[in-house]
């Protein structure tokens, strides 16, 4: 058990190191930081001084170590475009994205699993078929189109919900939340649906196919042959086994919600880190890109770690380390 967790943590650390290397390489090979920091009027002496100051004259591994050291302390340098420390900008923007991701993630998982189970159990029912057909449209509709469609309907035509922004926010310490004000709650509905819909269809389709697979297994047939109620067979025997593979993918999906937030935030002008990132890409603002990359990867690694531990809780085969057999 302990070795398993330790192994996972080590692997996660390795992933972070690799991502850090990618982020660091962006500094190294994309654009020249000196160019970015000094204006047109510069002397060779200036350049040399700045080089030493930034440590650019040091060997690559030393620079990488410095970069990591700073990153761990939350220092990602200064945004080329805004001229403010990247960490400061991120802290300011993160709550908006995290709230959006949490709400839509919750929607996606709860509705996705529910509908997936429903469509698997009533495989040939009318409702299940209708849901499955609709879900294909859901997968085929790009997120940004869903957003535009919702804005057109609920903001432009009906005028019920705001088309952009976060509404009023309340500050609790450094965290700003829109979930405590009426306008904030109204503002999050459309973006959350837009962001969650695609993940929801994916989770639903996955749950359905995994569950159909499990329902074909011998132990499910044996459970039926023992006369157990359909409900017991479907939920006690089949659903739990379905969840084992579903958890991994769902974990990954949750991670990608944060990334897909880029699109939603652009459509709804949602003031989160996604909007920040897309602007950074357009203006090649490397420190912001690198910091965003690191932030996202920390989150993914965290989610993956939780997923692994969940696995552990659900699947007894992992817990026993292979002993006890025979």
């Amino acid at each position, binding site marked *: 058990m302990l070795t398993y967790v330790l192994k996972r943590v080590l692997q996660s650390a390795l992933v972070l190191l690799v991502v850090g290397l990618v982020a660091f390489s962006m500094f190294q090979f994309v654009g020249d930081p000196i160019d970015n920091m000094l204006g047109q009027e510069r002397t060779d002496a200036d350049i040399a001084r700045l080089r030493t100051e930034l440590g650019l004259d040091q060997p690559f591994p030393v620079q990488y170590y410095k970069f990591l050291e700073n990153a761990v302390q939350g220092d990602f340098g200064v945004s080329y475009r805004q001229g403010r420390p990247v960490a400061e900008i991120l802290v300011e923007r993160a709550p908006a994205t995290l709230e959006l991701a949490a709400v839509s993630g919750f929607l996606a998982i709860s509705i996705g699993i529910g509908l997936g189970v429903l469509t698997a159990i009533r495989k040939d029912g009318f409702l299940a078929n209708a849901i499955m057909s609709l879900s294909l449209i859901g997968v085929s*509709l*790009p997120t*940004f189109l869903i957003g535009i469609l919702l804005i057109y309907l609920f903001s*432009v035509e009906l005028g019920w919900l705001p088309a952009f922004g976060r509404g009023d926010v309340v500050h609790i310490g450094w965290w700003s939340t829109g979930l405590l004000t009426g306008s904030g709650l109204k503002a999050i509905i459309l973006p959350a649906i837009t962001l969650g819909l695609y993940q929801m269809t994916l989770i639903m389709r996955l749950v359905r196919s995994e569950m159909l697979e499990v329902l*074909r297994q011998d132990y499910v047939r044996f459970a039926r042959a023992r006369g157990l109620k359909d409900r017991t067979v479907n939920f006690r025997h089949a659903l739990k086994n379905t969840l084992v593979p579903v958890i991994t993918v769902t974990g990954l999906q949750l991670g990608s919600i944060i990334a897909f937030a880029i699109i939603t935030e652009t459509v709804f002008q949602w003031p989160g880190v996604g909007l920040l*990132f897309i602007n950074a890409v357009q203006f*090649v603002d490397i420190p912001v890109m690198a910091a965003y990359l690191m932030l*996202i990867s920390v989150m993914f690694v965290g989610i*993956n770690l939780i997923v692994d531990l969940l696995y552990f809780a659900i699947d007894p085969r992992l817990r026993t380390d292979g002993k006890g057999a025979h």
Partner: protein
Amino acid sequence: MSDQSSTAPQSRLAKALDSDFVYSFRRSPVAVVSFIVVMLLVLSAVFAPLIAPHDPFDPGSLDLMNGFTAPMAPNDFTGDVFWLGTDDQGRDVFSTILYGMRVSLFVGLAAVSFAMVLGITLGLVAGYVGGWVETLIMRAADVQLTFPSILVAMLIFGIAKGVIPIQHHDQMAIWVLIIAIGLSDWVQFARVVRGATLVEKDKEYVQAARMMGRGRGIIMLRHILPNVLSPVLVIATISLALAIIAEATLSFLGVGAPPTQPSLGTLIRIGQDFLFSGEWWIILFPSATLLALALSVNLLGDWLRDALNPRLQ
């Protein structure tokens, strides 16, 4: 129950047409319709220069007076009629869609082909060779999988933008898109091919070939590859829909196809500005085309998965 297939000799074509695969295709109206839609869209994209009533990129044929003409209604000034209306610069929306679809399809197909070749190669090698080669490839895949494809594509795009001199940006944009989407998509192919390879490599026909002294390359290409391709076909189809959507998304976000070479996504981005001022057609028709394309490819992929899944037969 007779396994003796002693029927009269059939031609290859007749045999293929009689196969369960073709049968299940013909029996599925959804598959047939989506296949026809895909073919129709692909053909009209390929022959866009012949079909399109206007060349939207020839400034000579444009008349700014024709701007914002509604569909099927004569323009107030020139009296010209456009099926699907015109945009702000007087470009025929129908023609821009045809040309835009060319870009979307080209990027999608090229990106999927790139991802497929890369993924199959790495998956086959990882599965068959095993050892540290496998560990290396699959760890790389794991790391990449933790990053959603759209993010990877954006990063690659951002990096390319920094590396490539600014005057080449528009020119290179399409290729950067292809590489960005392709690189973000190889993992699925690699994982599936590796999984299938692990199953196949323990089968006795592979052992028979090894016993003969066949080299690794021959065994991988001649024996294993043909047997792992059917899941690849399914993924390729679904990936094509995803790649088209990804391209549209990137272009919509302004990090994809340049305005000089607009794809469907670029058109929607442009049209979005006019949605609220009442010129709905500029965004509606490209969006509908994109949806039709992605949906029919997805439906085809969905059918293909069921048809090729031996357990469901």
